[in-house]
């Protein structure tokens, strides 16, 4: 089709029409149309608009065929080497040395000898001499090769074919052919199909009379060039949205460096608590210590730790200012919640709902799901008379917005909340209850020294941003998600973040 286009195509289609429902082979079609077979292969056919997949269907087949090698073809023309040697010997014979100079000399001589067509007289005058041994010969090699050339290789005995193949006169070739059948839109009349609409067609109105090549809807389109948002931060955006929908105000968490005072002491976390160990927390060498504290409040914190008060026994240990001064990379955003609640306590009390989503740091052993830094999501509500039932109800609303409906609560221990509850949700994939967050009511030992009124309760909960994201996007190694080893392909391919679906 490549060269003569529609005319030849039409001939092919007519042949196919005559062949009826059974179809026809590409080899025969090529022979009948006088084309090289390579012009009748399917990719070539289908590239032509007149023979699109809808017009003709094709199925690939392969067949074997015997063909002559170039040497075989020469023999069909000139006769076999041995026959040529026989023919070149006159009645008086030929010196062997001369015979060997002939083009077919070497091969022809040995074959003619073994056929006993010629004989050699080694004692002749002037050196060895070759004579005809028979009157005439029958060149059967040439005859057999002629049969092959006529396409009748099958009529030869296998032993003969193998002999000829061994002499490199014959070769077996595999031909890829196609079986061509009528397609669903088969027609013998060829109309040229247009690839696509052009402005000219629109201007002239010619599109009304034109046929258009069918689109291949199986293929993918071309992706638009674009930038992409990071999956974890897409999830962060959704969590922000949920908190804002629920009326929570965002806390300023843009302070990674925190004093031990706000991170631990203000939360009534004792100074010997293991979380304050070198093994769990990053301490700072420079700037090593915080310098400025609300001193009245600090004194109340010291007292509640070392002696108790506000109805508490306290921890009864020697509270040290130098321990509270130590700067660290904050281990939780609750340090900011403490600052916010302290600030809230310095004015006439109004109810508050706070949230934050930001980085926290742990000097922990790293593995596939733990990094030294991760994002903590935190929600806090402060009001008079809040109950444990209120905390559970708030959590239910929050998790419903995440698409998590089945919740249950397990008693737990947190140094700064009491009661404390771990939040579990039923994971359908894992078929078990998995922990999805931690929560509780802040201890009076934390709130009262800040100056919050006695009847005010503060409920709070927290979870990590990474864990729900890894579950959501099916990521097993946190390094593929967070940090410089991120898999950018994953970022490019990421879907929208819709937590509730």
């Amino acid at each position, binding site marked *: 089709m490549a060269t003569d286009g529609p005319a030849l195509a039409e001939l092919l289609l007519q042949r196919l029409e005559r062949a009826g429902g059974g179809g026809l082979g590409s080899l025969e079609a090529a022979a009948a149309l006088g084309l090289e077979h390579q012009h009748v292969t399917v990719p070539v056919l289908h590239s032509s608009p007149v023979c699109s997949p809808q017009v003709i269907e094709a199925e690939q087949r392969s067949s074997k065929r015997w063909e002559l090698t170039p040497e075989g073809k020469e023999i069909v023309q000139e006769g076999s080497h041995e026959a040529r040697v026989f023919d070149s010997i006159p009645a008086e014979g030929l010196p062997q040395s001369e015979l060997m100079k002939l083009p077919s000399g070497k091969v022809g001589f040995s074959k003619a000898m073994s056929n006993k067509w010629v004989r050699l007289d080694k004692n002749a005058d002037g050196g060895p001499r070759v004579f005809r041994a028979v009157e005439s010969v029958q060149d059967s090699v040439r005859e057999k090769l002629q049969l092959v050339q006529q396409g009748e290789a099958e009529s030869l005995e296998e032993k003969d074919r193998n002999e000829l193949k061994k002499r490199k006169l014959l070769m077996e070739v595999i031909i890829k052919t196609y079986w061509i059948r009528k397609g669903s839109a088969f027609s013998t009349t060829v109309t040229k199909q247009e690839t696509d609409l052009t402005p000219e067609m629109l201007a002239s109105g010619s599109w009304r009379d034109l046929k258009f090549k069918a689109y291949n809807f199986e293929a993918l389109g071309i992706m638009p*060039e*674009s*930038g*992409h*948002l990071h999956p*974890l*931060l897409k999830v962060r955006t959704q969590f*922000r949205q949920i*908190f*804002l929908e*629920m*009326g929570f*105000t*965002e806390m300023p*968490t*843009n*302070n*990674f*460096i925190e004093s031990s005072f706000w991170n631990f002491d203000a939360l009534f976390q004792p100074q*010997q608590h*293991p979380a304050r160990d070198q093994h769990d927390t*990053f*301490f*700072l060498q*420079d*700037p090593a210590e915080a310098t400025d504290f609300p001193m009245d409040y600090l004194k109340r914190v010291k007292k509640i730790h070392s002696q108790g008060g*506000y*109805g*508490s026994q306290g*921890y*009864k240990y020697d509270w040290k200012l130098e321990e509270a001064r130590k*700067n660290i990379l904050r281990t939780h955003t609750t340090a900011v919640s403490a600052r916010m609640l302290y600030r809230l306590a310095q004015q006439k009390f109004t*109810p508050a*709902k706070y949230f934050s989503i930001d980085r926290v740091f742990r*000097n922990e052993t790293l593995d596939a799901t733990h*990094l*030294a*830094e991760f994002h903590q999501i935190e929600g806090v509500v402060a009001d008079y008379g809040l*109950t*444990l*039932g*209120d905390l*559970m*109800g708030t959590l*239910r609303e929050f998790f419903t917005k995440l698409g998590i409906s089945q919740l*249950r*609560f397990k*008693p737990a*221990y947190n140094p700064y909340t*009491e*009661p*404390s509850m771990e939040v579990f949700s039923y994971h359908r994939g894992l078929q078990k209850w998995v922990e999805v967050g931690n929560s509780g*009511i802040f201890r*009076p030992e934390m709130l009262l020294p800040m100056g919050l009124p006695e009847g005010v309760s503060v409920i709070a909960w927290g979870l990590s941003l990474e864990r729900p994201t890894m579950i959501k996007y099916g990521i097993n190694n946190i390094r593929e998600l*967070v*940090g*410089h*080893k*991120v898999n*950018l392909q994953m970022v490019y391919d990421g879907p929208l973040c819709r937590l509730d679906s």
Partner: protein
Amino acid sequence: MPTVSVKRELLFQALGRRYTDEEFDELCFQFGLELDEITSEKDIISKEQGGGKAEGASDIILYKIDVPANRYDLLCLEGLVRGLQVFKERIKAPRYKRIMPANGGVQRLIITEETAQVRPHAVAAVLRNITFSKDRYDSFIDLQEKLHQNICRKRALVAIGTHDLDTISGPFTYTARPPSEIRFKPLNQSKEYTASEIMDLYRTDSQLKHYLHIIENKPLYPVIYDSNGVVLSMPPIINGNHTKITLNTRNVFVECTATDITKAKIVLDILVTMFSEYCEKQFTVEAAEVTYHNGRTCIYPELAYRREKVKPDLINKKIGISEKPSSLAKLLTRMCLKSHVTGSGNNIEIEIPPTRADIIHACDIIEDAAIAYGYNNIQMTIPKTYTIANQFPLNKLTELLRQDLAAAGFTEALTFALCSQEDIADKLGVDISSTKAVHIANPKTAEFQVARTSLLPGLLKTIAANRKMPLPLKLFEISDIVIKDSTKDVGARNQRNLCAIYYNKNPGFEVIHGLLDRVMQLLAVPPSKASGYLIRAAEDSAFFPGRCAEIFAKGQSIGKLGVFHPDVITKFELTMPCSALEINIEPFL
């Protein structure tokens, strides 16, 4: 959270009934425990050391149970069973009693002045006529280990020593001596060593080596002698072999030495309340007398019962339930907090046993009432709290900019806030001292030496990790860097930066420059010398000479853009030219 492993059979025997694993898991959940793993010694060994080593190990089923970190009374089989049985109202909580020995011969421990510098406190008690079995003995040792690891803070705050009282004779002396003068046969050793030799001996001991640092550099080591000079122990390292407890031991002398007396009392109370169960007079503990060098004398164990009054109304209001005072008292009693309604029903009196040192405030009592009521039986409610939400302005701006940077064809990266000094200094061609970086004192690896002072290294590393991706790579990040700032209470502050990078076969300065123009367009800042933004040629070691400009807006320098210096590109293991931009977005708030 500490994990206690108990033999399933022993547990069920002690509980007097059998549970399926699921039933027991559920019971744990209700009570605030977690059935973490069902395993066996064989499983554990083959998991840790390979199947071959596990041969011959016991395949008795073990429950590994996670216990809340403040519930020291649940750290052994005895305590777990007691807690659960009382919770299920199958038994009443036992009442622990301190008794003086009948013949008046109370055991005495004298603390000398020398201990003040190293480990000033000690408490003691006697478990009289106790009967051990193999399982009880193992549990006794395990509990001491659990206490050491948790409340005792790896023996730094408190160290426990238990001794066969019949091998020694009081009064006992707790003193401190130079290591060369202390000499005894340590537990399970065959010969005597001096204290210094003992320290060397245990330097490679997988367990004990962790405790050596507590006294190692002290001039005097703590040591306890009996009246004949027999060494009971050298706390917090090791006991003497002489007083070793065996299955046949009938009378146990318990001493705890400490730097924190409150914790020492708690530890002693827990150990003796748990194991007095096996004394001839169940749940009684024989007193011991401790005398400080100034003559102050204390009788231990304290085994103090404290009474608290809490209003039923307060309990109901804090939980969000409305139970009758009598049912609340019953709920609390199920948590080993024996309670009754007093007066006209407007108060509940609660008795806090010596096992419940975790109860330090009414809120702890309220929590126990809630647990006994069942967290999942509490009616969920939505608080009426009315508030208007506000976004943090800096985050609001960040969210808006992120969307439009992605729309401009750049992909968002999320890199670490911590990195190595090399990342922010050497690799960018600057000296670390000029960076105003905050330094971390205890990084486990170089990756956590400093907080980043620029977002550039993170983005360059992100590209290096994604070199197989098709070019160009266009990345951005809007996040915080940290710099020292002496005007802040902690001496440092965050700064919100916007950083973008272009990596291709050509440097693409015009691409990055175009992005800056777009960002300024988004921020409604026009290109103008007077009130808008402008860029001016600048030098920066990170950038190729003549290919760097400083960005000015809002009357101040807000950052730089440029083509990276080839040295920077090479140091970050990149092979293509690359340009970048980094600005502080806080002036645009």
